[in-house]
């Protein structure tokens, strides 16, 4: 009997050992929202694309320092002004075992041009594709495009055969029926992780792809992702060890993480610039009171200057951002191509000077204006607006704060509602990490072609900037290009077209049990996650 027990025990122990492989490393992480879809062409949104990056790969990629590296393409060159040739990696397989070839790239280009695709901005970069052989492909561009490979980072490649088998050859759209929806729930990429299961809004499980071509740092074999909406709950989950990585963490909770056992904040400068903008289009303020009857004070550069000087950015940094923000003088962050430190200056915070400017402009007694502000979009967005309102009160401006959820806020201030705002707070990360995107979307006069000035909500307008923006687009000489970018930014600063506030911090919380790399664009890449 005794020996039998012994044998059984040994057998059980043996099987237990076999069942648990030496390197079963589980990694749990949480973000404030869920990835919108698993379809790599379905939603152009930082978190969604960042999450899909673990499953799918593009031709090129960015490493932890945002430097461009090859992914599915080994090398690329600008073979003629309007042609880029990519040499594709050989021996790469999709998760279902299919080979990766130039056909898949051509198919993916077709797919991002379909109706449901949210990657049409990328599609517009490509005029046509020419397959040279299984592992060489040419992209023809409508105009010379020196930065094209950079812009392709978030263009992920899908398997042609798999898509055809599962009838998901068109990008899945919210408007479409259920039939083409396969890629929304399932995934078949070439990336280091496979999608094991997904319950949207609740839980997504990824497992390691052992056949991946690249040698990555990560030892994670299984990753479990959960969205957690509430800041407090997310922080609690991290501190209590229910997740290994959580972001964003409210900046005021950094101290708490520092002092708690087993966790720490992981922070860095984000490339997103937060700024204020003014209605400079209308002849009368939409939300002004008696003092601005028939007038729009924001058309006067002195008023804009006064606003800028009334705002104490250091106080906002110290108190609201808990020292974590980088005050900005430019509309772009230091990480963005085109940034110059010399231009990144702000006039001093000076209430007396601001008051004087207001008097000179004829608004010594101030005026009234409504400020539009999101309350769930940027780090402490509503608190920044509130603080700005009380700072502006000191130069006589009565700010009525309208802080709303991002759905309502964007529904009000964007183009489809005819830019219904007088004074607003907005944040912007150029998706290309190049200054041109900001010049075009935020600083150019509205109404041009190609979406130009579409997010210039206040309608700031100096035709010279449009002119420079167009030239920056196609200039291939980097020095000339840089000079033009600087000239445009100088004009904008002199005219106080917007008031840049700061770059908000990246704010993650990680367990001491894991190592991760934080990318400046707030993307978390599982390739970098190591469980200790």
């Amino acid at each position, binding site marked *: 009997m005794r020996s039998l027990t012994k044998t059984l025990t040994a057998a059980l122990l043996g099987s237990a050992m076999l069942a648990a492989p030496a390197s079963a490393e589980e990694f749990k992480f949480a973000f404030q929202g869920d990835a919108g879809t698993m379809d790599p062409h379905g939603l152009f949104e930082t978190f969604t694309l960042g999450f899909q990056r673990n499953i799918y790969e593009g031709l090129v990629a960015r490493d932890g320092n945002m430097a461009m590296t090859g992914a599915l393409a080994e090398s690329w060159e600008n073979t003629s002004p309007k042609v880029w040739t990519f040499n594709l990696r050989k021996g790469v397989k999709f998760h279902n075992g299919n080979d990766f070839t130039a056909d898949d790239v051509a198919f993916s280009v077709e797919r991002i041009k379909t109706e449901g695709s949210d990657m049409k901005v990328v599609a517009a970069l490509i005029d046509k594709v020419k397959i040279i052989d299984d592992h060489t492909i040419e992209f023809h561009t409508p105009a010379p495009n020196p930065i094209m490979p950079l812009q392709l980072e978030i263009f992920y490649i899908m398997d042609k055969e798999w898509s055809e088998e599962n009838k998901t050859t068109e990008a899945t759209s919210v408007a479409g029926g259920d039939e083409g929806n396969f890629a929304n729930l399932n995934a078949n990429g070439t990336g280091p992780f496979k999608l094991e299961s997904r319950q949207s809004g609740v839980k997504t499980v990824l497992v390691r792809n052992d056949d991946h071509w690249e040698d990555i740092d990560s030892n994670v074999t299984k990753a479990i992702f959960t969205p957690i909406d509430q800041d407090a709950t997310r922080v609690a989950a991290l501190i209590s060890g229910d997740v290994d990585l959580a972001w964003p963490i409210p900046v005021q909770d950094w101290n708490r993480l520092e002092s708690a056992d087993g966790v720490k904040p992981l922070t860095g400068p984000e490339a997103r610039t937060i700024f204020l903008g003014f209605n400079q289009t209308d002849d009368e303020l939409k939300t002004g009171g008696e003092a601005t009857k028939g007038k729009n004070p924001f058309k006067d550069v002195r008023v804009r200057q006064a606003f800028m000087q009334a705002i104490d950015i250091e106080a906002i940094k110290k108190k609201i951002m808990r020292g974590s923000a980088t005050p900005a003088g430019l509309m772009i962050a230091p990480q963005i191509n085109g940034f110059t430190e010399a231009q990144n200056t702000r006039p001093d915070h000076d209430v007396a000077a601001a008051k004087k400017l207001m008097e000179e402009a004829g608004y010594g007694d101030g005026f009234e204006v409504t400020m539009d502000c999101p309350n769930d979009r940027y780090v402490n967005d509503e608190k920044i607006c509130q603080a700005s309102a009380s700072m502006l009160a000191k130069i006589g401006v009565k700010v009525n704060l309208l802080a709303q959820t*991002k759905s309502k806020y964007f529904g009000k201030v964007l183009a489809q509602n005819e830019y219904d705002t007088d004074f607003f707070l907005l944040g912007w990360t150029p998706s290309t990490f190049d200054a041109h995107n900001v010049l075009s979307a935020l600083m150019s006069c509205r109404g041009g072609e190609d979406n130009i000035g579409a997010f210039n909500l206040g309608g700031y307008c100096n035709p010279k900037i449009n002119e420079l923006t167009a030239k920056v687009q196609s200039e291939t000489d980097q020095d000339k290009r840089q000079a033009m970018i600087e000239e445009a930014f100088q004009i904008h600063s002199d005219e106080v077209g917007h008031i840049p506030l700061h770059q908000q911090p990246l704010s993650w919380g990680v367990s001491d049990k894991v190592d991760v790399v934080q990318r400046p664009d707030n993307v978390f890449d599982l390739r970098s996650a190591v469980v200790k």
Partner: protein
Amino acid sequence: MISFLIKRLLQSILVMLTVALIAFALFRYVGDPINNMVGQDTTLEERADLRERLGLDDPFFVQFGRFVVNAAQGEFGISYQHRRPVSELIAERAPATLELSLLSAILAIAIGIPMGVYTAIHRDGWLSRAFMSLSLIGISLPTFLIGILLILLFGVILRWLPTFGRGEVVQLGWWSTGFLTWSGIKALIMPAITLALFQMTLIMRLVRAEMLEVLRTDFVKFGRARGLPDRYIHFKTALKNTMVPVITIIGLQLGAIIAFAIITETVFQWPGMGLMFIQAVREVDIPIMAAYLVMIALIFVIINLIVDMLYYVVDPRLRVDRAATGH
């Protein structure tokens, strides 16, 4: 009986239609869904195009008609956020909400009724005064604050209970249950208590009030005069008579618990319908919002119907009255 039933059913359908109409009318004003569905670089033309494809530009009654016809077939369209059929999403999320609500209801009843009875019998005892006052705390603090304080205490400081979610769930067919795993049960505790507190206070106070009424009635007095033991009077006579109205209210409150779960689910990231609804409101996911409201109305209408029928069966006096006044 049959005509009563048919009448009630017709009325219920009317209620459902009204709810659908109101629900639908409301959503036109909660924001613009398009901006949450596309990225920042999507052009204005593409946005307008998408709005048109979704039928958001159609006249109100065209949209409503489409909604009712589809809803009657159990089709609520495709969620903008999840890009999946709403009916599927609701089926997926319903078990989480129902399990939480059920446990909360049991907690609220199991604690509320005895406390109500006790405070009624010992009306002036110090313990019942303490119960009465303490129970008020359950309705004196906002649910969200109670939830967060619980998380802070049991999740972060003591680390006894998980801070969010449902833990491990087991699939039984299409139903996912958290009752079968240890982590699932642990995850249920805090949300269930948070959700139960308010209803518990309500039930306790209701039972107490009803019980006090009954204890004053003549037949209880006769019982006492006849020398029946207190225990018999309290539990056999009084409690029994208290139960009829209490059951009605509890029935109605069950519906309320499911709806109230919105806040609890938000605080605890509980993956149920309420959390999905709040997210839908934030992202202006109209199909989910509409489906959720219609669901809640349906649950309520069904509970109401059952309660009415129970009454009809239990209390013959009502038959005449009901039939005469038509409801």
